[in-house]
């Protein structure tokens, strides 16, 4: 049975002048433990869909359920990793990771234990008392991942988490994420606009269309991991998905040109 059910989801943003249909007729079933990438150009509604699952912005119509229960608000059972890290700058690394557990009023000794384990898991032990301002982007994202892992939520939502990182750090964190996912067996919904990233990571890639956001292709990826981005199979899929994404990107670009012309 599916863990996350996205049923007939529509999302309309009302703006003066015209309404923008961000999501239309989205139907997805996501099994527990699956690594799903939402792929598409800017404006395709992939982040909107993720925010709907997170509970930040509920759909205009349709329902999203987790284990049969409809989502009505954000909650720690669906931990979110943001592209901008969103670490609390006034808390040290350890305090950031512990915050979610303190909210749940866990026993301090237990919190300490969990924090130490996560610091170890993400190779952050030497940084436990640093403030976020003293960390590199890659390190900050490790802390953000640890903060969500601390919640021990079955579902992890990631909104272009590695988008702001350089290519090497990015690959490094992708491998770390796969290692953690393997170890902890979370369900991951991962938003990205990088075709290569989605093929490298996902069990399943959902390609979305530019306005209105619909599912253009629901592509399973069965290549064994670790995947080799230079292999023929990898590149064949990359070409195919690239073609799909670029069609949508073209529509996005045309739209922008039209808007510019009106101005």
């Amino acid at each position, binding site marked *: 049975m599916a863990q996350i059910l996205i049923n007939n989801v529509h999302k309309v943003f009302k703006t003066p002048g015209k309404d923008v249909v961000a999501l239309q007729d989205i139907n997805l079933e996501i099994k527990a433990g699956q690594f799903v990438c939402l792929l598409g150009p800017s404006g395709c509604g992939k982040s909107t869909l993720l925010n709907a699952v997170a509970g930040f912005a509920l759909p205009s119509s349709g329902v999203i359920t987790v284990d049969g229960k409809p989502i009505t608000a954000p909650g*720690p059972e669906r931990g979110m990793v943001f592209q901008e890290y*969103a670490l609390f700058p006034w808390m040290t690394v350890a305090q950031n990771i512990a915050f979610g557990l303190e909210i*749940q009023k866990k026993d301090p000794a237990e919190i300490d234990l969990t924090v130490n384990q996560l610091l170890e898991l993400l190779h952050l032990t030497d940084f436990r008392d640093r403030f976020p301002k003293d960390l590199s982007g890659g390190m900050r994202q490790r802390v953000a991942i640890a903060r969500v892992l601390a919640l021990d939520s079955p579902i992890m939502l990631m909104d272009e988490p590695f988008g702001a990182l350089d290519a090497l750090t990015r690959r490094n964190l992708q491998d770390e994420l796969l290692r953690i996912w393997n170890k902890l067996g979370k369900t991951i919904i991962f938003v990205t606009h990088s075709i290569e990233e989605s093929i490298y990571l996902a069990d399943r890639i959902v390609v979305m269309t530019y306005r209105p956001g619909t599912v253009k292709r629901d592509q399973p990826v069965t290549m064994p991991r670790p995947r080799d981005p230079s292999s023929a199979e990898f590149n064949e899929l990359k070409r195919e998905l690239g073609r799909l994404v670029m069609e949508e990107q073209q529509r996005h670009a045309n739209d922008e040109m039209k808007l510019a012309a009106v101005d």
Partner: protein
Amino acid sequence: MQKLKDFAHGALVPVLLLLLWEAGSRLGLFSEVLLPSPTAVAIKWWAYLLPGQPQEAGQSYLAWLFSGELPHDAYSSLFRVITGFLIGAGLALPFGLLMGASPRIYDLFNPLMQILRPIPPIAYIPLAILWFGLGNPPSFFLIAIGAFFPVLMNTIAGVRQVDGIFLRAARNLGASQWTMFTRVILPAATPYILAGVRIGIGTAFIVVIVSEMIAVNDGLGFRILEAREFMWSDKIIAGMITIGLLGLAIDTGVSRLNNHLLRWHRGLEH
């Protein structure tokens, strides 16, 4: 060595000015009554600092050492500044947090605040005397008003500028309203609030001197006004320098506190 060099560099202009002043006085360029020489001021300052009475039986040495007029005045002024500031800032902080967090409360109170804010604390003096009579209470009132608005305005601005991403992250972690307020909004607003505190203390310091000129009979503000009546310009200047030193000490203290509380903040070296 570098520190010594920096100090010498910073001391250059004040020392030069003192030398010019001293030389001018010795050459008889300034009237001794209107502008006494720096040495005369220093001698007066020292006399003002020393205990006025011989040590009494049973009085502790430390108490006697600080029994002079200057320590007493400085203490009185400082006490008024701190009490008044604590009242003003203590009211402004929760009120500012509420106004910043709730648009409804903000819309309700903002017009009143905008009308009251431009009234200088000094303009409250007549009312303060009518309401509170003489002694410390009118000073507390005036200083509290002086400290209230900077802290209030900055607290409101601080709460309003809190980045939405922090609120989203905290909601995602399951934070309650109260946790959100105390652990996210308040710390995120701290840089603004502390800037307000610094301005508020500065205002409190201005107001204390003025308020001491009207309703009390000790404190640095009272003393320099009193000295004028006797044409003791050396004492006036000695009192002014003490005010300057006290202000510097307070600002240094607040700045230290600032650096400690904001050690997480970007762009702060410590």
